[in-house]
C-alpha cells in the first residue's frame, strides 16, 4: 500500500466506527481506558483538522508505556477477557493517535473488528450481535471509502456495496457456523473474569433481613422437561444447604470432599435442562434430588447440591435427571448428626424453652414435628414480605413477638426448634415452583420464586423435606409468588394481573429469548449430531461433520462464484430488442440486411420494395416494433406476442427472382 497520508474526514470516519465498537464494551472497560481512547482520538482529530501530522514519537511512546503499565497494575495479567479487551481498546486509541498513513488506518479497522468479537465473547444477546454486525457493516463501508482511489463513492453507495457483500457472506457464515466442529472443552483455561458481585440467592440467610429477592422480577433460570413434568407442588429447586446457625444468620458450610451417601430413587425420573442465568456463584439449581447431570453441572456435594468449579458468570445449560422422591440411607454419620443438631449457646432462650416443653409432651420425633407445624398453623403467624426487623435472637423475636415473616423466618425457626429437640435439621435455599410458559412448554423461575425450606432426619425414615411455610400460608405454596404480595409488588406484575394479554405477551417474548438461548447460545456438539441425525446421516460423528462442512462449503462457494460472476458478462438485451434483432437476422439471411442507420419503418419500406411478397408481413412487424418501443401504451400487441410473431415469421429466400 502506498503510504498516503490520511485526511481529516477519513480519520473522523474511522474514529466514529471505533467509538461505536467500543460502546459495546462500555460497561466492562475501566473508565480511564475509555477516557484515554477518547482523548487520543480527540487530540488526533484536532491535529488533523489543522492539517498537522501525528504527535512526535516520544509522546506516543510515553503514553503507550504509561497506559500499559496502568493496565497491568489493574489486571495483573493481559490474559483473559477483561484485560484483553482493555488492552485492545488502549491499542486502538494509541494507534489512532499515531495514525498518519492509510496503513495505520487499515490496522485500526482490524482492531475494530476484533473489538466487536471480544464484546461477543462476553455478551449473549441477539441485539448485541445485531448491533455489532451493524458496526462491522459501517466499518466495512468506511474501509471501502478509504481504499477507493478515484472518485470516492458516497456514503449511500458505500453502505449499499458493503451491505451487499455482507448479504452474500451471510449464507456462507451460516454453513460455517452450523457445521464447524465445536470442542467440548476449551483449548486452554480461561482465567476468571473478575470478582463481580453475585446475584440471586446468597450463601447466608438472615431471617430478619428484608429479602429484596422476593420483589425481583429477574429470571433465575429456565427449565425445559424432556418428557414428563412433575406436579407443580414438587418443583423444589435445590440450591444450597445451610448448616451453621449463630442465632441470627444461617451460613453455608463449605463443601468437604466426603463421599456422597447414595440415595435410593423412588417414583418416576424427570429429565430436564436448566438454562441458568449468570449469578456469579458456584452452585447450580437442580430439581430436588438430582441423580445424573452433565459436566456443566459440576459435582455433587454431601448435601446433594451441585457445585461447579467456576462461578456461573455466563449463561450455562445443564442437562440433568432428578427424582422428586428419595429414600435416604439408613444411618446418619455422627459428624453429620452433630453438625445438624448444633445450636449456639445462650441464644434464643425462649425458643429452646418452648422446644423442651413440646418435646416433653411428644417424645416421638414425628409427633414432635407435627406439633411444631401445628403451632405454626394455629397461632396467628402471618406471611408477609415486609416483616418487622428482628434483633440478635431472631428466632425468639419472630416466634414470640412479631409472628410475621416469610419462608426464611419459618425455615429458620422450624430448624431451630428441631435442633433444640435433638432432631438433625438444616435449611435448604433454592426456588420453588415457577411460571409455566405455555407458548413454548418450559418453566420460568424468577428471583421472586426464591424459597427456603428445611430437611429433618427422622430415625427410620431418613431425610424428610419439611416446608414449614406451607403450614402457614398454603396459598404461597400452592400458587407461588405473586399472590401473597404487599403494596411493594412490582408495577409490571400488577399490570399483568389487570391485563392478562400483557402477561401473555411477556411469556411469548420470553419464549423467543429462550429459543435464542437453546438454539443459538447453547448450540454444541450434541446439537450438531442431532442435526446430522435429522438429515438421516447414519452414525453421526465428528468426522462426518467435517465432511458435511466441506461439501456444504463447496456448494456455498460455487453459489457465491456463480452469483458474483453472473454479473460480469455482457448485459442481455431487453426482450423487445432481442426479438427485433431476430427479425433483422432473418431478413439478413435472405439477403436484405438492415443498414446501421436504418430505422424500422425505412427498413420495412426497403424490404417491401425488394420483396413485395413478404412486404406486408414485414411492415406490420416493424410497425409493431416501433409502437412497442416508442408508444408502448398505444401498442396493439404485447412484447410476448411480438416475439412469437417474429419467431413464426419464416421468409423464404428469393421466392421470386430478385429485381435488380
Amino acid at each position: 500500500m502506498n503510504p498516503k497520508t490520511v485526511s481529516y474526514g477519513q480519520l473522523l470516519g474511522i474514529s466514529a466506527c471505533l467509538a461505536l465498537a467500543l460502546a459495546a464494551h462500555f460497561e466492562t472497560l475501566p473508565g480511564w481506558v475509555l477516557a484515554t481512547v477518547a482523548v487520543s482520538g480527540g487530540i488526533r482529530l484536532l491535529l488533523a483538522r489543522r492539517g498537522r501530522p501525528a504527535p512526535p514519537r516520544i509522546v506516543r511512546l510515553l503514553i503507550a508505556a504509561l497506559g500499559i503499565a496502568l493496565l497491568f497494575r489493574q489486571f495483573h495479567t493481559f490474559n483473559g477477557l477483561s484485560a484483553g479487551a482493555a488492552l485492545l481498546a488502549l491499542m486502538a486509541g494509541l494507534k489512532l493517535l499515531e495514525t498518519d498513513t492509510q496503513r495505520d488506518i487499515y490496522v485500526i479497522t482490524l482492531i475494530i473488528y476484533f473489538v466487536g468479537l471480544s464484546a461477543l465473547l462476553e455478551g449473549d444477546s441477539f441485539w448485541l450481535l445485531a448491533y455489532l454486525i451493524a458496526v462491522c457493516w459501517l466499518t466495512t463501508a468506511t474501509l471501502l471509502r478509504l481504499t477507493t482511489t478515484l472518485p470516492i463513492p458516497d456514503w449511500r453507495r458505500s453502505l449499499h456495496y458493503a451491505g451487499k457483500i455482507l448479504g452474500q457472506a451471510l449464507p456462507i457464515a451460516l454453513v460455517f457456523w452450523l457445521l464447524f466442529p465445536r470442542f467440548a472443552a476449551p483449548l486452554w483455561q480461561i482465567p476468571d473474569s473478575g470478582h463481580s458481585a453475585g446475584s440471586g440467592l446468597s450463601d447466608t440467610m438472615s431471617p430478619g433481613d428484608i429479602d429484596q429477592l422476593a420483589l425481583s422480577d429477574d429470571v433465575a433460570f429456565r427449565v425445559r422437561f424432556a418428557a414428563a413434568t412433575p406436579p407443580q407442588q414438587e418443583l423444589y429447586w435445590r440450591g444450597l444447604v445451610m448448616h451453621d446457625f449463630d442465632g441470627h444468620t444461617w451460613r453455608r458450610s463449605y463443601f468437604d470432599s466426603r463421599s456422597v451417601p447414595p440415595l435410593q430413587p423412588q417414583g418416576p425420573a424427570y429429565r430436564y435442562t436448566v438454562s441458568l442465568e449468570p449469578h456469579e456463584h458456584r452452585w447450580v439449581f437442580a430439581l430436588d434430588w438430582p441423580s445424573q447431570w452433565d459436566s456443566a453441572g459440576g459435582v455433587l456435594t454431601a448435601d446433594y447440591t451441585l457445585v461447579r468449579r467456576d462461578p456461573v458468570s455466563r449463561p450455562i445449560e445443564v442437562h440433568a435427571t432428578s427424582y422428586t422422591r428419595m429414600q435416604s440411607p439408613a444411618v446418619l454419620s455422627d459428624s453429620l448428626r452433630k453438625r445438624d443438631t448444633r445450636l449456639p449457646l445462650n441464644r434464643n432462650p425462649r425458643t429452646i424453652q418452648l422446644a423442651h416443653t413440646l418435646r416433653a409432651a411428644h417424645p416421638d420425633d414425628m409427633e414432635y414435628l407435627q406439633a411444631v407445624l401445628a403451632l405454626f398453623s394455629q397461632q396467628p403467624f402471618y406471611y408477609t414480605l415486609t416483616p418487622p426487623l428482628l434483633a440478635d435472637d431472631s428466632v425468639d423475636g419472630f416466634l414470640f413477638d412479631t409472628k410475621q415473616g416469610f419462608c426464611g423466618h419459618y425455615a429458620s425457626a422450624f430448624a431451630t426448634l428441631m435442633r433444640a429437640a435433638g432432631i438433625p435439621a438444616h435449611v435448604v435455599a433454592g426456588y420453588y415452583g415457577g411460571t409455566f410458559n405455555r407458548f413454548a412448554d418450559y418453566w420460568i423461575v424468577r428471583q421472586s420464586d426464591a424459597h427456603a425450606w428445611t430437611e429433618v432426619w427422622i430415625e427410620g425414615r431418613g431425610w424428610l423435606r419439611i416446608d414449614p411455610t406451607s403450614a402457614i400460608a398454603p396459598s404461597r405454596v400452592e400458587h407461588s409468588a405473586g399472590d401473597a404480595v404487599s403494596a411493594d409488588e412490582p408495577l409490571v406484575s400488577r399490570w399483568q394481573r389487570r391485563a392478562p394479554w400483557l402477561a401473555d405477551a411477556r411469556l411469548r417474548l420470553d419464549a423467543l429469548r429462550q429459543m435464542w438461548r437453546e438454539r443459538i447460545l447453547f448450540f454444541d456438539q450434541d446439537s450438531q449430531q442431532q442435526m446430522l441425525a435429522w438429515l438421516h446421516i447414519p452414525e453421526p460423528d465428528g468426522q462426518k461433520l467435517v465432511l458435511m462442512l466441506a461439501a456444504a462449503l463447496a456448494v456455498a462457494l460455487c453459489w457465491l462464484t456463480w452469483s458474483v460472476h453472473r454479473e460480469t458478462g455482457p448485459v442481455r438485451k431487453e426482450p423487445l430488442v432481442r426479438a427485433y434483432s431476430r427479425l433483422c437476422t432473418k431478413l439478413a439471411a435472405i439477403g436484405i440486411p438492415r443498414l446501421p442507420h436504418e430505422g424500422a419503418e425505412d427498413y420495412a419500406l426497403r424490404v417491401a420494395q425488394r420483396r413485395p411478397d413478404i412486404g406486408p408481413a414485414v411492415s406490420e412487424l416493424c410497425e409493431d416494433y416501433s409502437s412497442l418501443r416508442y408508444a408502448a401504451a398505444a401498442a396493439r400487441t404485447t412484447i410476448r406476442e411480438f416475439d412469437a410473431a417474429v419467431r413464426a415469421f419464416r421468409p423464404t429466400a428469393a421466392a421470386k427472382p430478385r429485381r435488380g
Partner: protein
Amino acid sequence: MRQAAIDKLRAWTARRHGPDSLPIRIHRRRVYILPTRFGMMLALMLAAMLIAGLNYNSNLGLAFAFLMASVALVTMNHCNRNLVGLQVDATAEVDAFAGGEANFDFVLRNDSRVERRDVEILCMGALGIRSVGAGSSESVPVAVPMARRGVTRIAQFELRTRYPFGWFHAWTYVQGSLTAYVAPAPRGSRTLPAVGGSGYASRSEARGDEDFAGLRAYEPGVPLKHMAWKVLARGAEAAVRSYTGLAAQPEWLEWSSLEGQDIETRLSQLCLWVLESDAAQRVFGLRVPGKEIAPAAGAAHRFACLRALALFGSEEPH
C-alpha cells in the same frame, strides 16, 4: 527473489495464454489473485478470532468470526470479478522522444451491469488507473518513460485491481504487442545546413507576401496556415497557397553533413533539425543511410521523418 518469481510467472502466463490480439475480453481463467499484506493481516486476525471463539465456547463470537471470514471470501470473488469480462484495447503504435514518455492510450470497455472500480494498468512500470461504469468505456492514458532511442516493443502489460477493501490483489497479463517508436532526443548545436547554394528561407521570408506564388490543389498534411480559406469560402475546391521560397527550394537534412560525430549525436541533431524545419513550415527532405524521405511538409511528413530516425539501425523494414 520476489522479482524473479514475478518474471517466472509472467513468462509462464505468456506461454499459457499465447499472444493476444487486441481488443480482448478478460476471461476468468487468466485472472490471478493473492492476498495483499493487509489481507495477510486480516487472515491472521481471522485466525485469532476463530481461536478466541472456540476457546470461549462462544457461539456468538464464532458467528461473528465466521461472518468476517465469509466477508473475506466474498471480497475475494468481488476483487476477481472486478477484472473478469472487461474488454481491453490499446493504441498499438506510439511515437515518443528518448528521455520523454510514450503516451499509450488504453481503452477499457465494460459492457456488464457492474461498475469496475479502480482498475490499474501497469505497463513497463508506468501506471494508469480508472473506474469504468456499467455499460461504458473509458480511456486510460499511460505515460511510459522512454530512456533510449529505437523501437521499444512491449509484449505484455498488466491489468490489476485491489478493489474492494485492498485485501486482495487480482491481476492479469495481456500479451498484446505495443510498439513505441522512440525518436532521438532533439539535441544539437549546429544550425540548419544551407543546401544547394540557394540558401534556406528564413522565417520572415516564409511568411512574406511577396513570395506568394499561386494556388495549388489541397493535399492532406499541409499546414493550416497555408490553406486558402477565402477560396474555400467562395465554394470552390480547397486550395493551398504556395510560396516560392518554400516550394521551389527544398532543403535536405543530411546524415552526411554531420561527419565526425557518433551515431546518436548525429541522430539527435537531425531530429532537432526536423522539428525546427517543421516549426518553420519549410519543405524539407531527410537522408540517412538506407533511407531517404522526399521533401515535403506537414505533420504526416514530420512523423515519417521522426519514425525514420527512431528506426535507424534497427532491422525492421519500414
